[in-house]
């Protein structure tokens, strides 16, 4: 299971990084989103994986590590705020340069 999880994380990261390296802002943001999903899963995994061990007192006999979960929550929210900002910045960029190229200008042909 650990290998499976790790491989999936790797694939998500690789996909995200590939998109991040595109020249247009939309795939870049998609890439960032994918990367942040992968990172969130990564943080979560640092508390190790377990089934049926939610960190709610009294709901099970064993508890998973609650701290990485709390970290992921913070990371998700911050990631969301950042994504929203970069998206709006992209809008503004389109308004200024009339292109969605990440460098604000169409590449020379």
């Amino acid at each position, binding site marked *: 299971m650990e290998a499976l999880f790790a491989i999936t994380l790797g694939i998500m990261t690789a996909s995200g990084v590939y998109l991040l390296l595109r020249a247009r802002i939309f795939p870049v943001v998609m890439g960032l989103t994918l990367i942040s999903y992968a990172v969130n899963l990564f943080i979560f995994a640092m508390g190790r994986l377990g*089934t*049926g061990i*939610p960190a*709610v007192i009294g*709901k*099970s006999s064993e508890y998973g590590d609650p701290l990485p979960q709390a970290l992921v929550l913070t990371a998700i929210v911050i990631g969301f705020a950042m994504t929203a900002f970069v998206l709006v910045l992209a809008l503004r960029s389109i308004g200024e340069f009339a292109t969605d190229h990440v460098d604000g200008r169409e590449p020379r042909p």
Partner: protein
Amino acid sequence: MLAAVIPLCLAMLGVAALLTVIRLFQGPDLPDRVLALDTLYINAVALIVVFGIWLASDLFFEAALLIAIMGFVGTVAVAKHLLHGDIID
């Protein structure tokens, strides 16, 4: 008995999810893909509920409810995007 039935259910739901994902990739049109995503959300509700029964844990109720809500909103939003482009107009 439940111990035997639940894996069966999970398997059926898994196959359902797989079929949905295939449609998601196949399309051919955007509405097909959105429909597939919507279905995937509903499948996920089913999956979560069965999973909750399997673990005899009632902690998944909110998740199921939220998946239902978010699935609906998402589908409507994409549909409106296809219809009118600007979803908040």
